[in-house]
């Protein structure tokens, strides 16, 4: 089955998109499924089974399921134009750690796309973990979803989008109104 979102969010913009995501239908197997021509994001299993045939493609993407690891493609990164991570349910948070590992551990600098059950209220945390493209759920307004990226202007901890935690990034002095209290002896 080929899924195509006519538009995705890239960075903070809604843009047209011409990639398709291949998902195996029931009965299809990774080694036998035919990968159509064009810009296709294939499942990890298909990449692994058909590596030789797919390796020459000018533009190819791969997607990881939540139980698949970033490390499984660590030697192949240069073959891909896009890496996607699937969120079969928006409550399954494994994709955030996969994204972290792709960016921080493996140094992936290309497009990292969230696919699946991608909703507005998760976009901010996705962006912080290194996603820069979002195929948001098509039954919702993608223009509304963009608003999910601008929720907080400051964050405490270090992660992909900001590798320096707040305590190293800014001087955090005692607020003037509290300077005379609390500090004790």
């Amino acid at each position: 089955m080929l899924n195509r979102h006519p538009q995705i969010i890239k960075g903070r913009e809604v843009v047209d998109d011409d990639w398709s995501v291949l998902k195996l239908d029931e009965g299809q197997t990774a080694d036998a499924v035919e990968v159509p021509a064009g810009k296709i994001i294939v499942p990890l299993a298909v990449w692994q089974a058909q590596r030789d045939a797919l390796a020459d493609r000018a533009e190819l993407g791969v997607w990881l399921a939540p139980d698949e690891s970033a490390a499984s493609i660590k030697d192949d990164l240069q073959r891909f134009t896009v890496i996607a991570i699937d969120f079969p349910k928006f409550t399954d948070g494994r994709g955030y750690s996969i994204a972290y590992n792709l960016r921080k551990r493996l140094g992936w600098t290309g497009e990292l796309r969230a696919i699946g059950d991608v909703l507005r209220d998760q976009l901010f945390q996705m962006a912080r973990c290194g996603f820069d493209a979002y195929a948001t759920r098509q039954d919702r307004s993608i223009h509304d979803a963009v608003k999910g990226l601008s929720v907080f202007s400051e964050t405490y901890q270090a992660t992909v989008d900001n590798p320096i935690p707040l305590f190293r990034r800014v001087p955090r002095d005692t607020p003037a109104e509290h300077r005379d209290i609390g500090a004790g002896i």
Partner: protein
Amino acid sequence: MYRYDHYDHLIVRERIAQYRDQVARRLSGELLEEEFVPLRLQNGLYMQRHAYMLRVAVPYGLLSADQVRMFAHIARKYDRGYGHFTTRQNIQYNWIELEQTPDILTDLASVEMHAIQTSGNCIRNITTDEFAGVAADEIIDPRPFAEILRQWSTFHPEFLALPRKFKVAINGALEDRAAIAVHDIGLTVVYNEAGEVGFKFMAGGGMGRTPILGSVIRDFLPWKHLLTYTEAVMRVYNTHGRRDNKYKARIKILLKALGVEEFTRQVEEEWADLKDGPETLTQEEFDRVAKWFQPHAYRELADTDVAASQPDNRAFANWLNRNVKPHKVPGYAAVVLSLKKTGVPPGDATAEQMDFVAELADRFSFGQVRVTHEQNLVLADVEQSKLFEVWQLAKSKGMATPNIGLLTDIIACPGGDYCSLANAKSLPIAAAIAERFDDLDFQHDIGDIELNISGCINACGHHHVGNIGVLGVDKDGSEWYQVSIGGAQGNDSAIGKIIGPSFSAVQMPEVIGRLLDVYVRCRIEGERFVDTVQRLGVAPFKEHVYATPIPAQELVGEDHYA
């Protein structure tokens, strides 16, 4: 106590805006309930049996008098005039309208409070010893570390959709009063041989359906690595924790499945990449946070024999004996205000009581209050010469019951009266037991004992670590109670053992009575209930409890003879 700076204020303000918008989208139907659930849970809003319940964060149980006054205000304005302090050192309100929650958050923010991550599958309120900073046996004040962890875990983007909730507790004293062994992560602040400060790092403890005590995964972690090491643990858990079965999703199950060695190996491997990275704590950051937890401006006083000043006042002596705790500064004491008066659900406080506690805090305890995980309140810094006055005042508001650590200082979850998860009621059981053993002489004779009641397997009432644990279970649509004994929290933490078949509600006071009979008969000088159980095992208790049938029907009036 810690005070917000510009950044803390900004983050909480932006959170309210985000949440207000989410509520509006839910009310307009743009957000489906199933999509809204994880969002509202991360803001402590549950749908309970009758209404929404809002759980407000009390970071590591520490409150200013103004924050307590705000709780009273919220109780009056948005609820039914009371709040419930929980075993997580938080407060929850039981009768909340969804539409009003953003306004409640706005009110809370005005006193530097919020409801962030008080529920949901994320890192929850970091808890610690209610006597942190004042305990005579303290090694290092754990609160700066708790605050540093609070900030780090707040909206940590990678760990907001974990397999399951995640609880961290820190202990900084010789005696563990933070129940660290039953937390997902339990930390003890220690010195190593070189005199450096660090943590003994435990993981994989928890209660619920499968009670397990935590395992030490690192004997000594230098304090600067607190965040990076915790991050390593979290990433291993987020990646490999089970998600197919909510009852097997906590980190304790992962740790058991992998074994401590393999789990630790994975954590250390993960940590190797993070160690000495930018999240490594700096002395400057520690100092910035720690300065808010410096000792108060104590007066130079000497310890006095307070009881001797009221030689004939047995009630006061009882209160001193049970509700007043030693303080590391001479001339001071810590006072526990009991929220366990018979007839009141454990942990409940009225708006009037909360205002009163705030007033006491301002007058007698540097304007601060603590919440205990046993669901009482503490004035941590009272001059010994003021204890009699504090006692009289507390008594006038029903908060001086001299029962701390005794039989009626019951830990109980809200149970089936409020909680939609509960299989059985817990508050009426607590009430019936408290009523039967209301006699203080009897309670003082029994001495230290922990009675914990949970209305369901989730174990919010911590029944597994109660010396006597009561668990409500559902059998064919009716409520029954399973009893365990020998559980303990603290340095000698233990999971209680079930004594046998369960009982009906009306049988429970008699069951407790029979357990105590055995204790009174068999104890040796100075032995606590739990020690007697440890020494004798479950058998003699079981035998006596089941020896003769306990009437299952309450016998009332003339029906006795019918």
